[in-house]
């Protein structure tokens, strides 16, 4: 399927999801759905670097918060100047640009590190950025910042519906970008980096350049997911925006779904995200991370390649394959004594 047709199919599915959510007629669906969609974007973005390229990024929260805080900063500028001309989509683009640039910079500084060292460096980035934000009074410092969101949006209705719709579109964009990369020259290049960087270089793959492209795209998408967040939450506070939840969830979701294709993070985010929302309502919000932990441990032991890998193995062991093997055995003369 071409990328354009994939994009259109995604849009149709998104429209159906939106229609179904409106039909339920309860605003809570939008509040809960927004979080799940946000995780689809975050885990898809994480997977571009972590899954396709094999570089584990623990700094998801940092990129997410960068997007959120660029919105806060712009919001402050708008209230100071009494100019409210920046609509949410523009804020998302700006948030994405800021995170993308930081992603590029972080990549340039840290991509010579591998494995655990790279992961530690990204974690350090999150700590550094959080310290900066806490000490930056203009965006609220450690007190946090309030954002007043409009009550209603023309045509769509309540603002949460609008946010939900925006995040839905963002998820479509993220998935299309991920799928485009996966089936492109870039995707092949990233896969070789994941497998063997030395052999990749020997085959002519400019590894550093491709890794920089991956960190930039991944960072930008995370920032875009974060940009509308202040409007969703209303009160943005550094501790929760830089929270461990984002980092852990955006790693756990692709791992549970499967990291080698765009479908993995989508499945993982829907499953784990919904489960967390249900646990929050029925048990308690503190159970969230416990759920992630338990499921992650189960998957690492039972299905290290995620749900996609599980399905794949099942297909490979189908009876027809067994028949195929037997046929080969009888055909080859060496097999017959």
């Amino acid at each position, binding site marked *: 399927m071409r990328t354009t047709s994939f994009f259109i199919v995604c849009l149709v599915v998104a429209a159906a999801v939106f229609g179904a959510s409106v039909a339920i007629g309860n605003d809570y669906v939008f509040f809960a759905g927004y979080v799940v969609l946000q995780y689809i974007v975050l885990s898809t973005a994480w997977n571009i670097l972590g899954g396709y390229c094999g570089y584990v990024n623990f700094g998801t929260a940092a990129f997410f918060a960068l997007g959120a805080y660029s919105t806060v900063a712009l919001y402050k500028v708008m209230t100071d100047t009494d100019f409210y001309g920046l609509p949410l989509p523009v804020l998302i683009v700006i948030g994405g640009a800021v995170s993308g640039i930081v992603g590029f910079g972080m990549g340039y500084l840290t991509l010579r590190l591998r494995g655990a060292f790279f992961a530690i460096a990204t974690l350090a980035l999150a700590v550094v950025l959080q310290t900066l934000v806490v000490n930056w009074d203009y965006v609220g410092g450690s007190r946090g910042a309030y954002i007043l969101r409009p009550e209603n949006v023309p045509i769509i209705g309540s603002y949460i519906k609008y946010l939900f719709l925006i995040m839905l579109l963002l998820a479509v964009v993220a998935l299309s970008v991920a799928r485009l990369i996966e089936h492109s020259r870039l995707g*092949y290049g990233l896969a*070789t980096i994941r497998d063997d960087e030395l052999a990749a270089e020997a*085959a*002519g793959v400019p590894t550093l350049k491709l890794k920089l492209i991956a960190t930039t795209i991944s960072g930008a998408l995370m920032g875009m997911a974060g940009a509308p967040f202040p409007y969703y939450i209303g009160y943005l506070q550094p501790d929760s925006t830089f929270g461990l939840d984002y980092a852990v969830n955006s790693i756990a979701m692709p791992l549970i779904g499967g990291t080698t294709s765009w479908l993995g993070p989508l499945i993982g985010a829907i499953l784990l995200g919904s489960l967390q929302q249900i646990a929050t309502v029925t048990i308690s919000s503190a159970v969230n991370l416990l759920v992630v932990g338990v499921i992650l441990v189960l998957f690492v032991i039972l299905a290290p390649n995620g749900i996609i890998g599980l399905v794949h193995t099942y297909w490979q062991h189908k009876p027809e394959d067994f028949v195929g093997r037997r046929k080969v055995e009888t055909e080859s003369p060496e097999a017959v004594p």
Partner: protein
Amino acid sequence: MTDLLIIENLGKRFGGFVALENISLSVTPGERLGLIGPNGSGKSTLVNCICGTLRNERGSVHFDGRSINGLAAHQRTHLGLARSFQLPRPFLSLNLMDNVRIPLLYTVGARGTRRSTGDIETRCVDLLREVGLDAKARRMPKDLTQVEMRKLELARAMASEPKLLIADEAMAGLTHSEVEEILTLLVRLNEQGVTVILIEHIMRAVMSFSRRIVVLVSGKKIADGLPDDVMRDPEVERAYLGQ
């Protein structure tokens, strides 16, 4: 005729250990050069310095008329230098087709000859057929035997359409007939115009393949000449057999 590869006074240290000292070597186009030496003599380090995996501290490497000092490994591959690894390093998550597709996309593509997807597909199959792996084109590298793995390694190196191929112990651990298979492949490549440097411990293979032999011992070049002359060299005998 100008030399394809010129190495001048190349030196490489690992901390206090001198891995290579004042190595000078030139290779003419179309040559079949054997590079031998005991374990730890610096053969692989030399290959790594030529291919850009390691940076040489001293001396210079010229390839195809230009200095390639300081160029990254992938840039050297783009210029026409290809290598196979001592231990095969296939891309484990890609099937055989995609393994040979990578150099076509990234090296041949970077030289300005854009090919359509269909052309690349055909070329991948051709390359695999050349090494006898076309029947396994859609299989994963983990399904291959050792000798097939070496063939894949060579196919991938060939996919970049190199001027110079460095085969780093492409035959270690193979049986007699498997060694013959790889040798036939290398000779065929050479006949197609590719200069080949063969690094090998199996003397039978080196002697039958090489037109010239260079001997490294403890990071120094101790002999360079026709195979029979080199084998008669007392210094080489001393290095290999001890005294």
